[in-house]
């Protein structure tokens, strides 16, 4: 279970755009998972179940706190560029631009994008996990992917 931590944290960071918020989400996810472990069905994937919990906590918080504007860590120490290798710097800038773009996508598109592309979950498992039809998964995903493609093509390389 502990082995899932880094990936849950990556997913939470991708959703929320803030490491602090991500860590908070992961902590709550573990608390809920452990207190509801009897609800986890043997034979199903534990990681999917935990992604689902994290996602529902995230959605509840968004609803509860929709006055709060999304805060992004702009002074995140992890984002500091190590060394002065120009190519590395360039790559970081592109990745940062991609992250910023993803954080501006609608939450439901971002969630599916992160699960499929970053976390490697199959379309079918995403559809089960979020309880939405597979057609909705594919159309939201395609919208997000096309938007990112157009964005990346625009960024001068």
């Amino acid at each position, binding site marked *: *279970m*502990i*082995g*899932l*931590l*880094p*990936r849950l*944290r*990556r997913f939470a*960071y*991708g959703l929320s755009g803030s*490491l602090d918020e*991500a*860590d908070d989400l*992961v*902590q709550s996810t*573990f*608390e809920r998972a*452990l207190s509801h*472990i009897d609800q*986890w069905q*043997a*034979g199903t*994937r*534990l*990681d999917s179940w935990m992604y689902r919990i994290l996602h529902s906590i995230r959605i509840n918080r968004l609803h509860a706190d929709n006055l709060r504007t999304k805060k992004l860590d702009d002074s995140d120490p*992890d*984002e500091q560029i190590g060394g002065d290798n120009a190519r590395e710097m360039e790559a970081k800038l*592109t*990745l940062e631009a*991609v*992250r910023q773009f*993803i954080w501006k996508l609608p939450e439901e598109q971002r969630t599916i*994008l*992160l699960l*499929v*592309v*970053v*976390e*490697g*979950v*199959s*379309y*079918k*498992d995403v559809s089960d996990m979020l309880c939405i039809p597979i057609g909705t998964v*594919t*159309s939201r*995903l*395609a919208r997000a*992917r*096309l938007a*990112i*493609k157009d*964005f*990346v*093509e625009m960024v001068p390389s």
Partner: protein
Amino acid sequence: MNSIDDITLVAYVDGELDPATCAEIEALLAKNQDLRGKVRSLRESTALVRSAFNHVLYSPMPDFDTGREGVVVPLIASGSAGKHRQRVRNWWPRALPLAASLAALVVGASLGHHFTERGFDRELRNAGFSLSSKDESAIQNALIQGLEKELSGTRVAWTNPDTGHGGEIVPIRTFRLEDGQYCREFVDVRNVAGSTYDQGGIACRRTDGVWKVRVRYLPENGGV
């Protein structure tokens, strides 16, 4: 097929399509340069998205309160707890990049990732079990159906009432080797006498339509 909608094209880039649809798209790509450009752009931007959040994996983690010491939950649990050892396994490496070449995987796998050719059978034998030929052919049928016909993530179950053994094959990603062969990753889960054994593999489809398992590997021991 004369044109491809964006949804199908994205599914193609994700390796989510069955080989037949893949082949139709490949044929279309061969004669349409604009489409090829679009696929290339999609792949490039996808690769950026894939790596955009990875730094989080390596950044220092706070001390999470993960509850009771020693809580161990298997990633894929067997139905009965029993006294058989429960295994905690990490299936994460399944998220191979679409363009992963088989060669790269084999190298990666042999560098300590429990690469095994027939390790599954050995493991079962060590535990005192052997699969009957009827088990083997049920697995073979599930494998062929899963690889040939099913979308990735679909579970194809098999059971053998004679032995009480069962399991499932789950096809994962589809990709293409440089020589044009279609290959698919899959997970092979077997439930034998109350214990669950799982293994990953890659099978490739020969030009005569026969699927050959090219490699089998145990997942990394993650979890605890």
